[in-house]
């Protein structure tokens, strides 16, 4: 059974239709990359998957692990095993990284009928994941994302993913703005989490990420539609030719 099945998805923001019929099937263990020019709807797709209410689904269906994702609230989707790494992670002053992440993990554990983790057990787990992403321990007690550099925020997203161990991770431009060292660290963290069951959707603007995280499939999203799908070689082609060749008549209209 597929883990994620998107059928003819239409979605609007403030009355403007952004996604205009998306079909995508992701099986357990697969890594899919979604590439596309600015404004094509990549983040909209990611936010719809994470169940942001201001993104209105006007048609189609999404099945996640056999359940209707569109019936779920953001917290339900998270508890069911969906994780979205934000393109622009939010700063939350006044709450420490460690407190926040333990609250999140315990909410998910509770949903799954597992015991809550106390700080004694949780801290070593978090520290281990932070080491993997080469984040200094002082970030434990820093307020969530507050005053972090762009790269630190992105790494912090991957730390969260590593702690929450989702079934499906949607990474929205986690590579953008990273220097090459940070990119390698993030890629290492993501690759360490790849396994036969866990699936990933990598939303990216740049082909470079795919040098470090090799996807099984690449899709090109233009103007709210997937206009081309293929293997990793498609990413290289995009890099060389740009997006314009994928569907000139649509791109030209924007």
């Amino acid at each position, binding site marked *: 059974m597929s883990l994620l099945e998107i059928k003819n998805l239409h979605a609007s923001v403030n009355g403007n239709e952004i996604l205009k019929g998306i079909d995508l099937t992701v099986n357990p263990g697969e890594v899919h990359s979604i590439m596309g020019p600015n404004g094509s709807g990549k983040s909209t797709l990611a936010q719809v998957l*994470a*169940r*942001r*209410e*201001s993104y209105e689904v006007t048609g189609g269906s999404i099945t996640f692990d056999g359940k209707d994702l569109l019936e779920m*609230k*953001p*917290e339900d*989707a*998270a*508890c069911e095993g969906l*994780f*979205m790494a*934000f393109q622009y*992670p*939010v*700063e*939350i*002053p*006044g*709450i420490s990284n460690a407190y*926040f*992440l333990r*609250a*999140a*993990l315990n*909410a*998910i554990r509770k*949903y799954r009928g597992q015991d809550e983790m106390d700080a004694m057990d949780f801290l070593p787990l978090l520290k281990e994941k932070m080491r993997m992403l080469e984040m200094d321990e002082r970030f434990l007690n820093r*307020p969530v994302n507050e005053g972090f550099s762009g790269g630190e925020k992105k790494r912090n997203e991957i730390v*969260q993913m590593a702690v*929450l161990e989702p079934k499906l991770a949607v990474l929205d431009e986690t590579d953008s703005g990273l220097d090459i060292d940070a990119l390698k660290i993030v890629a290492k963290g993501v690759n360490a989490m790849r396994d036969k069951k866990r699936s990933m959707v990598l939303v990216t603007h740049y082909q470079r990420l795919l040098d470090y995280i090799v996807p099984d499939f690449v899709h090109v999203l233009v103007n709210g539609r997937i206009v081309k799908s293929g293997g990793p070689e498609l990413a290289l082609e995009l890099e060389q030719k740009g997006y314009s060749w994928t569907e000139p008549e649509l791109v030209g209209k924007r």
Partner: protein
Amino acid sequence: MWVEQGFNPCVASNYFFGLSRCGKPPAAEADMRGSLAAGLKSLLHPAFLKRILEDLLIVITATQAPEKYQEIFDQFGSRVAAQPRWLQSLRQEAFARFAETGFPTTHDEDWRFTNVAAVSKTAFELAGLEHVKQEQLEPFGVSQFASRLVFVNGLFSADLSTLAAMPAGVQVGSLAAQLKNDPASVEPHLGRYLNFQRDPFAALNTAFVEDGICIAVPESVVVKAPIYVLFVTVPGSTPTMNHPRNLIIAGKSSQVTVVEDYVSLGEGATFSNAATELIAADNANVSHYMIVREGDAAYNFSTLRIQQGRSANVATHSLLLSGALVRNNVHPVLAGEGSECLINGLFMANGRQHMDNYMLVEHASPHCDSRQFYNGILNGQSHGVFHGRIIVHKDAQKTDAKQTNRNLLLSDEAQIDTKPQLEIYADDVKCTHGATIGRFDDNALFYLRSRGLAEAAARHVLLLAFANECLDRMSSQQVRDHLEKLVVAGMPEAARFEGERSPEGAERNLEEVG
């Protein structure tokens, strides 16, 4: 988390050059009245009409109030007949001032947003000592503090109090006892700094001086553990009032932490009108905490008057949690060069509660720093006020004063009035102020929920985060933990709030640099 711009510090040397001549810099008039029920809606609002009526009423009643108090004052005179003569005349003077002014009205600029008609119209009798059992204090959760002094209706209760061993020379106890045993130690300080000309409530408090906490720490002595003072108001069958008067004297290079906690034992109309004079001598280090968590029918007025010597460092923290009407006056005077004052506060109002914070920060010497941070959380139909006045006197060059007031409105009917007032008479100073009025940030809420937290839990986390900004400025871990518990206990209702969003302008940022 709430939309907020950075505060641009402004070196005001050019901007304010010459302004001392015209007396009032333009920013003094800056008035930011922020209310979600703005515009037409608020004009038609019953609360507005009610306020007009109350305003009319108060004009009529204000002058009557002191007569009723005259009788009480006269009777009180025999109760404290043994007080030293200088105190008797101080009280007389203060009462005369109160009789002259009566209670303030909203026409008075300092009381513009707070109508005290409910207090002036009620016939309060002076409360006496009530019998309270130790078990009755348990719900207040203060047993972890080794030094715990309890006042019932403003009067010291030796039976309920415990005092840990103190370093030699430290004096902690009842002001009434101190006045009896060693009045000479009190005379140079009591009433020296609190100005009862300015504030009728301060006059009333001074007129009724009887008891309160009296703490004196000698030079270079460090008192590590917090001294916790619990003021228990016991409502009677008819409305009662009490006027605790506190004196904290921190000697040169000494260090001390004091907590004042105002609570009610039961429900009923009460009027607590406290005043504290805190004197931090040169290089002293003092932390002061003020907690107000009285009952739903309690009126709590307090003034903290701080006098700081050279390089003295004072931190004042206020936590207002409940009460029908709370007025929290904080008035530090940075009188010695290089002194520093942190004025930190959190107010959380629910239902129809009214919480007014009136800050008057006076810079009277060069090179002093003041930092004001007040966060407000307003739910239901509550009304919050933050009035932040900063006066920089002529000689206070190199003043660095900062003021920040952030407010979170959890309901459409809650209201906040925030008003900075800068009066700057020196020409080389740095003063910044800013205020924000916001709602829950949808981005932050979504972020938390996308990590698995249910909506109510996410709101709770954001409220705690907002409160933590204030709690994190507290240096005593023990007091901080205690206050966090109180904050969390006061919170769930707010976290459950699910009101409609206002489509535009849900977050406003009011900022000015002066």
